[in-house]
């Protein structure tokens, strides 16, 4: 009876997984065919006329438009995640030592972009940029920098939220011990605090990257003249794909790019899982060693 339940549960899980992956997998299957739409398998060319070809991949490598969008996306994601991580980590560290009321105010404001709708963040920033540009600078402010600010607003609060719990776990006496041992405050921060909150900083950074990669609305509102081309507006993968699927099917070259994105994402997920498993094993053996050492020290005393 229990096994029947388990079979039912497992099939429920796998059916849902299949449904979630189906659209992406279909795109990947059709990336080996030169048809313009999904569902029509064009034959007559490729291996033995079966339609199995790598033409779409060739087109992908030749496409300047996609190359530029991809480059922009990566540059924006990395730079905004770096700035967001710096700002958010510093904010969390500073707020940790502030008075309770100051911290509460900062945390309340920090929560606004987290719960707010993206479209409001985008609209309000854009209106402000236009206003400031008209009144103070007398020029159009929209550029890479406005886009960067937009993405940082989106992601820095999440970095803050990721770093904060790690700070709360810190042993405050370690920092004071470092100061007593003649370390300057900045050295103590670098050598004592940063290494301990590093996991929080890293997960904040990864989250910032994923938010930036996924963003459409803020990019569409706040981007200015192109980053890699120097003209038009900055096109990222999101805005590029959106402009295409609004009118028709996903461009054939994007199907090929989907294959690569999918492989990359799955690779990262597998790597992350293995890394976590190894760390968990090593961590447990390490802590048991420490426990033994502690026990020994206790016994000696």
């Amino acid at each position, binding site marked *: 009876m229990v096994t029947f339940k*388990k079979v039912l*549960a*497992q099939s429920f*899980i796998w059916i*849902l*997984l299949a449904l*979630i992956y189906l*659209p992406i997998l*279909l795109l990947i299957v059709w990336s080996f065919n030169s048809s313009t*739409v*999904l*569902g029509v398998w064009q034959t007559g060319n490729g291996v033995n006329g079966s339609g199995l070809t790598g033409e779409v991949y060739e087109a992908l490598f030749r496409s300047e438009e996609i190359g530029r969008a991809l480059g922009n996306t990566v540059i924006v994601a990395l730079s905004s995640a770096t700035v967001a991580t710096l*700002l958010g980590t*510093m*904010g969390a*560290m*500073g*707020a940790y*030592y502030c008075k309770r009321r*100051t911290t509460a105010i*900062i945390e309340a*404001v920090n929560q*606004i*972009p987290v719960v*707010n*709708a993206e*479209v*409001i963040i985008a*609209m*309000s*920033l854009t*209106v*402000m940029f236009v*206003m400031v540009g008209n009144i103070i600078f007398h020029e159009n402010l929209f550029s890479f920098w406005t886009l960067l600010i937009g993405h940082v*607003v989106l992601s*820095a609060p*999440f970095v*803050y939220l*990721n770093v904060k*719990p790690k700070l709360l776990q810190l042993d405050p006496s370690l920092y004071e011990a470092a*100061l007593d041992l003649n370390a300057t405050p*900045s050295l103590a921060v670098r050598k004592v605090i940063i290494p301990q909150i590093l996991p929080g900083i890293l997960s904040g950074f990864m989250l910032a990257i994923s938010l930036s*990669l*996924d963003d*459409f*609305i803020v990019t*569409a509102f706040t981007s200015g003249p192109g980053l890699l081309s120097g003209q038009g507006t900055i096109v990222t*993968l*999101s805005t590029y*794909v*959106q402009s295409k*699927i609004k009118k028709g*099917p*996903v461009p054939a070259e*994007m199907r090929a790019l989907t294959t690569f*994105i999918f492989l990359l*994402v*799955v690779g990262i*997920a597998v790597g992350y*899982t293995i890394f976590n498993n190894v760390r968990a094993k090593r961590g447990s053996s390490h802590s048991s060693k420490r426990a033994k050492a502690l026990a020994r020290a206790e016994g000696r005393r």
Partner: protein
Amino acid sequence: MRYKFARKAPVIPYAVFLILFVILPILIIIYYAFTDAQGYFSFESLVEFFTNTTKLDVLFVSLLIGFFNTLLCLIIAFPLAYVLANPKLNNNYVLVILFVVPMWINFVLRTGAMKEMLSWIGINGGTHPITATMIGMVYNYLPFTILPLYSTMLKLDRSQIEAAKDLGCNPLQTFIKNIIPQSLPGIVSAGMMCFMPTMSSYVISDTLSDGRIMLFGNSIYLSFSQLDWNGGSFMSLVMLVIVFLTMLFTRRFSRNTDPERGGASW
């Protein structure tokens, strides 16, 4: 004394950043919401919003689609999270990761993939705008609902469920009287993760319904591109109020639970 200041100092750039790019833009939105095109104080946008049937329709449709999407996501994600977190039914953590992995693929691309698949089987924006949009919404927001529910389900008190069974509850009663109350914080935070973004989404409704369904996101985008800043700002303000009310509602349920909700960690 100097040391104490040095420890607090890093907060300054972040505080300045929050004031300049979070608080100030919202104040500007409020300013535009209550002025007219000439910059004088007026309730023009407010009156227009509550008398213009297209804008009220947008509010109504957004609430409706947000509600049904949240409901559908919860109906699918709740049993799924329960099954995933139950060691008797599943002890493979990798399956949980598999549900999260698609979130790393660009969501516009995923929406495009969904659009093509749907038009292949004959559901396109021209013929079935609502069905197509709902499928796209559930497809996109399901992972966001699974995670908070999963993390609550992991903490379910199994002995309590056993006790309910021992004391003569049938499975339905156990479910209603024990499992649902125990996982309520997860349900509320999952619903929040789903409801808010659905109401204000732009890409999914725009592409999957061929522009036939206007949600808050689409409407704000439209008024902005038509340079109707006052109207757009007022709509943003209405959305902001809805966000705020939902927050208050959520607070009531999750006050006594741990701060690390599933939403914050992804």
